[in-house]
């Protein structure tokens, strides 16, 4: 498969992922991830450097298996968490997608992202933005995310940070 095809695939998948989150189609969103997918949002060591080693440094979110994301989805669905009463409305944007060299039968890509967030209860609006890297692996007829690292630039967030706000 050629690079142009890989780039198209990665771009479409990232756009699709954002749309699923905006539509709150949590099941379809989870299905984009492999069962052993790593989902990682590093914290910041200081003004200029993020933490780089999840075993020795703090991350904002680090799930070495998809089950961590499944639990977060369960929490949203339970309607027990006040962070979801009501759920914020989001619009995900992704751009500047480029391929990153990977070995083996995987596709690596990086991108810039932004999420516009609106809270219906307070009418307050905010934005999260940053970069991300994904690795995609082929499983039979489809591509799954096996690794996603989300770099959040404005890390002093207001009250809540969760998968649907990234």
């Amino acid at each position, binding site marked *: 498969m050629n690079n142009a095809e890989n780039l198209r695939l990665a771009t479409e998948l990232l756009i699709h992922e954002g749309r699923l989150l905006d539509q709150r189609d949590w099941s379809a969103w989870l299905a984009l991830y492999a069962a052993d997918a790593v989902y990682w949002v590093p914290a910041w060591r200081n003004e200029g450097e993020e933490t780089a080693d999840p075993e020795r440094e703090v991350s904002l979110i680090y799930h070495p298996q998809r089950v961590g994301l499944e639990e977060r989805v369960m929490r949203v669905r339970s309607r027990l968490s006040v962070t979801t009463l009501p759920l914020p409305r989001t619009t995900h944007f992704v751009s500047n997608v480029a391929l990153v060299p990977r070995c083996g039968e995987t596709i690596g890509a990086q991108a810039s992202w932004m999420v516009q967030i609106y809270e219906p209860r307070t009418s307050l609006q905010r934005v999260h933005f940053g970069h991300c890297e994904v690795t995609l692996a082929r499983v039979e007829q489809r591509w799954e995310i096996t690794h996603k690292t989300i770099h959040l630039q404005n*890390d002093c967030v207001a*009250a809540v940070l969760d998968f649907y706000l990234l």
Partner: protein
Amino acid sequence: MTFAAAPTLNPQNFIDDRPHDGVFRVRHDAFLNTALFDLEMTRIFESTWVFVGLESDLARPHDFVTTQIGRVPILLTRAGDGTLRGLINSCRHRGTLLCPLRKGNQRVHVCHYHGWQYSSAGRNLGITGAAAGQYPANFVDDTHDLLSVARIASYRGFIFASLCDAVPTLEEHLGEARIFLDLIADQGPNGLEYVPGTVSYTFDANWKFQFENGLDFYHFAATHSSFVQILRQRPPPPLPPDLPTDLQDPDPQAQGSYSFPYGHAVTWSVGIPGQGAERRPLPRDPTLFAQVRARHGATRTKWLLRQRNLTIFPNLQIVDIQSLQLRVWQPLAVDKTRMVSNCLAPIGENNAARSFRIRQYEEFFNPSGLATADDNIMYAFCQAGYAGATRGAGSQGYARGLGERPAQQRHDAAELGLRDPDWAYGTLEFGDESCFHAGHREWLRLMSRGS
């Protein structure tokens, strides 16, 4: 329903404290009044001991961190001679912010506006173009060193500073709450450190909600029910083979609190199912844990494996539960607060314990964790709800624990060497609220002191 008139700004009007009648109330508008908030900055945060940092964060000469006390920017340094300095982070020339960075190591701090220079001890090392400046004699005679905080002192690695000189010694200020700082410090035979990755966040509510909530066991089951549900459906995580087998707390299930002069308090619990000592990071490094045990003995080890939430008034909470968190708050407005959260760990802890500690910390704390995010939103709900119809009536949220004490009262003060603390003791469903009183009483004492 009748509405009481809004009180004048006399702080006495906001708290109704009648211990002998079993009454303790705080008016809701103590959390809403902007003039009162300004007074809190002056009379509380800028007038008493405030936690400013950890000594291990300033390990080498010329290390610095920047922070804030009330509205005042602070440059905390370790000077060349090894002493700690609490400097006002404001150039003596025009008052510009001197150091714009969070932390680092610098022998000399140069003001970027006109180039005045200061040593890491705050001494003025040079005034740009002084000779050509046609300065008057009184200027030459004046000191040009950075201003300092009035007091700075550290207790077992925890650094506190006060902008006001009229405070007791730090030892007296901490009082017997010191023993609960000991139970934190004792966990690090080689000292404690922040795990890299400080997390800051804000919530849209008054800082006193955080102060109270950090002592509030009552909210856990309701506010964090989605988290509890997640824990329940998980298969029990396997225990490491080298975990010590004698971690069981010998005492019955219980929850209690101690309160101290100057506003500090701690809540503790024993025997929450699924959250015993085997789920704590400390014993996961068997070598380090053996050292702790040998040095501090069975009773203190028992206590340092218990869940403890410690509040050192007015701005510090150390939460020692599934993991160990140190958090401080910086009030930004009457309805906005910034939190700074760090994972605290023994220096030299092994990899397995460290990574377990970090996962447990991330899962619970911070806006990205499964519990703290709920608290943050709950504070905002409180801020919105407090403006409601009960406004004049005062809260009903300070009464648990004020009634008659249970027959089998037991509070273990003696085994910790506590002499005469205020205490409360009950079942795991107790949810004491009398432990909030000390902070509000200190609030009233400081607010009534005048500036």
